[in-house]
């Protein structure tokens, strides 16, 4: 195992995050605050409670998930796409590092950033609404696993992308809508039956539901199903990464 290489890549990626610290940390704090003002105050004054939880508090897990998913995907995809774009990937390809080490370090760095952001949003939320975390360990488990899984997805997108449009396509046109429609800001139960059924095809519903359960012990779907969905996500992503490296897809000529 080339520990020095993992450390070097991880450090490099984290310092990239550090350079854009303002943007990385300030922007989620601001946007979270905005969500609370817009959704919490404006809509929250009409929807007092969802499943017995104050509306402002209800949306916290969804808000965190929204950031985790979009940030994990965009960070990890950028992290591997950029060296491809500038050509500096030559160094990575000529170095004595295994594919496993490459994935661990890039995905690890992207996931770390997401976890930090999730924590910041959690703390920011505490200033606006009364928070309660019924199962802190489960909460952490969902937070970490989701960050890694979607960073892995981001890595795949970064490898696949051959232009900046594609890089932005998936986060913007797939992840964000799925998250908004996945019950970030409402309970699936509030929808008409037809749309409830449709929602069940949205994988993000399961993530948000499980995450919210760890806070308030309320869930749209069974906890076991949520866990199974994350496991499937992770499994599929891992399989695709393994395939990419086996074939050199879009990495090596």
């Amino acid at each position: 195992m080339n520990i020095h290489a993992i450390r070097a890549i991880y450090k490099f990626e984290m310092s990239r995050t550090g350079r854009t610290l303002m943007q990385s940390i300030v922007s989620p704090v601001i946007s979270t605050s905005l969500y609370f003002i817009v959704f919490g105050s404006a809509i929250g004054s009409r929807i007092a409670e969802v499943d017995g939880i104050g509306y402002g508090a209800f949306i916290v897990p969804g808000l965190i998930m929204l950031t985790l998913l979009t940030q994990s995907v965009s960070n990890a995809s950028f992290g591997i796409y950029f060296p491809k774009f500038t050509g500096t990937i030559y160094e990575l390809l000529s170095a004595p590092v295994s594919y496993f080490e490459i994935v661990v370090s890039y995905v690890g760095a992207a996931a770390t950033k997401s976890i930090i952001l999730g924590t910041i949003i959690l703390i920011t939320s505490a200033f606006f609404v009364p928070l309660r975390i019924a199962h802190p360990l489960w909460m952490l488990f969902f937070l970490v696993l989701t960050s890694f899984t979607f960073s892995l997805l981001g890595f795949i997108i970064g490898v696949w992308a051959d232009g900046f449009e594609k890089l932005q396509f998936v986060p913007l046109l797939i992840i964000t809508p799925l998250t908004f429609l996945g019950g970030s800001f409402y309970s699936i139960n509030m929808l008409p039956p037809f749309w409830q059924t449709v929602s069940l095809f949205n994988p993000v519903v399961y993530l948000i539901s499980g995450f919210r359960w760890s806070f308030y012990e309320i869930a749209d779907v069974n906890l076991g199903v949520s866990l199974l969905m994350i496991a499937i996500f992770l499994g599929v992503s891992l399989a695709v990464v393994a395939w990419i490296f086996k074939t050199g897809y879009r990495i090596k000529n």
Partner: protein
Amino acid sequence: MQTIISISKLSKTYSSGFQALKNVNLEIRRGEIFALLGPNGAGKTTLIGTVCGIIRPTDGTVNIDGHDIIADYRATRSLVGLVPQELTTDAFESVWNTVSFSRGLFGKAPNPAHIEKVLKDLSLWNKKDNKIMTLSGGMKRRLLIAKALSHEPKILFLDEPTAGVDVELRRDMWNLVRVLRASGVTIILTTHYIDEAEEMADRIGVINKGEIIVVEEKIELMRKLGKKQLTLHLQDSLGRIPDALANYQLELANQGTDLIYTYDAQREKTGIEPLLQDLTKVGVKFKDLQTKQSSLEDIFVSLVRNVS
């Protein structure tokens, strides 16, 4: 001499269907400076990229220090430093960080003293805290060399290291290469500057259209193919070569004012003396003369022309 890199039946066909390397066989000797010469698009970068693990070979094998580059990539890649042809660098990293990063990437524990030495050797020490984007082109080139040397490689690939580099930096680069060789590093450089190969290399390989067409000691190559030319600037121009001189390899140039004699400089008898005597006999007078050894460039041009 011991072989350090052994390339055997190496072929590369890109996904576009273009065959950039055709059954390349090549041995690089430990501690030598090997110059790979070839026109643009000959396959130099492809060959280097394949040896370094950036490009997948379609066929054939490469061994470095006894290890296969695919089965035992960790062992082989640890030995190799690569300076790419293109100036590909990060923009926002500092010089110090990017060189330290390279060392770590190649599995070496941090060693600030070594990084310091490398940066000083490449006159980058006073730039160590600068962001890469503030460096000039020449400095970026040196930075890429510093990155390649950060992990103390035994073999260094330089892909057109002096392309677009000013004369002074070229001299510095040549000196650096000599110092590295003296410390036991094997160096493979590609270039299309013939004088660079002539100046630096122990051996020269010529590649054209994906095929190695000759590999030879530089001195041997020049001797084998090296012809000398004697040019006589005549007092009066000649319409044609006098019959009495038909036995010599002579040509007229410059509207008959220059008489050119081509001969083999390595031969015992160059034929210059009898030629001059015969010229006097037929009454051809000259005011000046000049000899010229054919350069690698001439050799190269004639080689490439012969093959194509």
